[in-house]
């Protein structure tokens, strides 16, 4: 099965700063997805990242806050911008249709 690597695994950031999370897949995939999982909660889709076009954001998430890049079919980044404590969460990338493969997650704490 494909391997998906996500980094950093965790970070503690100051409010007002930005963090970029990277996700690398060992094979080419058409769509990649970014999810947020708040402590003890379910996974919520932030956006779908398509190569060669702008990401598609779900309701409640905007590009200015969560800009996404998808420069090729194996790589994507999610930036959490102008962070506040409410952004403290686990962020996960994934790909796949009949089976979703998830990165290990990035545990973000904003202080």
């Amino acid at each position: 099965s494909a391997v998906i690597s996500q980094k950093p695994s965790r970070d503690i950031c100051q409010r007002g700063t930005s963090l970029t999370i990277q996700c690398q897949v060992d094979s080419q995939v058409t769509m990649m997805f970014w999810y947020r999982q708040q402590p003890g909660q379910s996974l919520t889709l932030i956006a779908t990242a398509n190569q060669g076009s702008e990401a598609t954001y779900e309701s409640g998430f905007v590009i200015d806050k969560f800009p996404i890049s998808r420069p090729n079919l194996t790589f994507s980044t999610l930036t959490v911008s102008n962070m506040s404590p409410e952004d403290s969460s686990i962020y996960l990338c994934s790909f796949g249709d009949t089976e979703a493969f998830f990165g290990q997650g990035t545990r973000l704490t904003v202080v």
Partner: protein
Amino acid sequence: QQPVQSPQAVILREGEDAVINCSSSKALYSVHWYRQKHGEAPVFLMILLKGGEQKGHEKISASFNEKKQQSSLYLTASQLSYSGTYFCGTEHLDGTSYGKLTFGQGTILTVHP
């Protein structure tokens, strides 16, 4: 629309059985089941695509009803390793959400010796 999972939590002794349900107000394209252990990423268990489908093996199996609005996950003769949070993830039939999952709120399963 987020699917509704029940129960929210289950506590079992080793060897006992459990059923976790996942319901949607609209017909689904597919339903996925995942298990997540604390501090880890969700791990795929199975996907159901057809109404009336049942799949899996003796210990962990799932069903999808004919109307494709309700799925159940069956855990038989539970083992300690079954402990974790179980999520159903659903895909809808709107033609734009292929591969995009909406997750239920999760069911915390705890298996004791």
